[in-house]
């Protein structure tokens, strides 16, 4: 009994940050598109729909479609509110050109959102541009994630430094100390 209560509590809790994040982001994109396309069409726009997709690999709570959004005032006090892990949400919104999708992922650790990912999935040029401009205007502060945890096949960055350069740098360091 107690177990199932906890589990449902957890479900209830982790919906909150993801939904809020996703709604903020999707609404921003939506507003942006409306603003950009206001001269093109005055057709009614639907409200953004948010679907919680996948729960954390570190949590075995099941994902829930739909979801209730809690305000800060309704948050339970005095305990750890969210199960640590990464949550993904996909959001859809309707444009004059049809339905569009974006994805947000949010990582929660000790009740703090430690990371979020924005990803555009648009395939038509107009929506790609809108999403892109949103992402661009957003000028996001990014964080690093450990390469070991990302299941990468390759890494691109600055080129491996030529050996000669490293040797020279070492020599200079020694000289500076001497």
């Amino acid at each position: 009994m107690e177990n199932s209560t906890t589990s449902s509590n957890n479900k209830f809790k982790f919906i909150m940050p993801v939904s809020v994040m996703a709604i903020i982001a999707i609404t921003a994109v939506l507003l942006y598109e409306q603003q950009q396309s206001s001269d093109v069409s005055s057709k009614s726009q639907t409200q953004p729909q948010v679907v919680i997709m996948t729960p954390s690999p570190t949590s075995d709570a099941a994902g829930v479609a739909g979801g209730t959004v809690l305000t800060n005032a309704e948050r339970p006090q005095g305990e750890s509110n969210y199960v640590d892990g990464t949550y993904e949400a996909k959001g859809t919104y309707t444009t004059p050109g049809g339905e569009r999708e974006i994805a947000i992922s949010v990582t929660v650790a000790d009740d703090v959102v430690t990371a979020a990912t924005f990803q555009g999935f648009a395939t038509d040029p107009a929506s790609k541009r809108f999403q892109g401009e949103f992402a661009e205007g957003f000028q996001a502060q990014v964080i690093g994630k450990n390469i070991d945890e990302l299941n990468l096949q390759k890494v691109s960055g600055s080129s491996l430094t030529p050996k000669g350069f490293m040797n020279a740098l070492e020599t200079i360091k020694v000289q500076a100390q001497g």
Partner: protein
Amino acid sequence: MRKHEFLAIGTQWELLVADQIDESTWKKLLEEIQHCADEFNQRYSRFVTSSWVMNLRAGQTYDLSEQDLSLFTLYEQLNDLSGGLFTPLIGQLLSQAGYDAEYSLQVGSITAIPDYAQVVERRGRQLHVFQDTTLDFGAAGKGYLVDLLGALCERRGIHNYLVDGSGDMRHRQSGDVELGISKKSEISGIRVGLEHPLDQQQAIGVVQLSNQSIAGSASNRRKWGEWHHIVNPRQRMPVREIVATWVIVDQDQSYPTMVADALATALFLVEPKQLAAHFPFDYVIYHQDGTVKASPDFVGELFVASL
């Protein structure tokens, strides 16, 4: 899956081939690759004192090969677009700053860089040199060699491969052949992390590279004192506002890795909009303050700190 790791133009390379090829074809290919890379180094390296680019003499006219031409054409186009900031004459300034063939890393007095047209004039395949000079194709050279090695693979009938010139990559995939460690069920292509410019153990995003090229440029590793190797020739100082850039170019462009490589450096000097009007490409720019700017059509993940 065949894999070949090798050293070329002073850095580490890797070739992955997913096509079924016989042993003798593979051997021949590897010989061709080594030969091509060695010749490339002898002609274009600023770190080989006997190379062609290090010994251009006043009053001489040089015949350019087809291979030279692609490099000169791209450099001249970017020189125009950047108002002279993107220039093969940067080698002189880098040498004065200590980034020379001996890696002296001693900053000397830095003199102004002349205009490209004052030093050389190209008419078709003829290069006329007005004053003794060295040319530096470092901003596009590695990407160009990636493309040339990719072309060698394709001439041998290989169409599923990855050439990785230590972070500058050309990926090709056709049909059902899977390349890399991805499972059949996953989206095709190679999952490439964008290395955090301040922490090599981390990435700031992920790109799924599929029939595309990617090149990155960053000022974090080749650093000496106040200097690094991406320099604004007019300010005669290294660029500080931007720390790292990545450029992705589709395979339908000719020499996409060369173009990606050059644009990654050009983004340190020129607004993306100025370049986007002439080259179809996607980009990610990492600024000194930790903010990131991505191109409108960028498809990939960026790890955002807060919303």
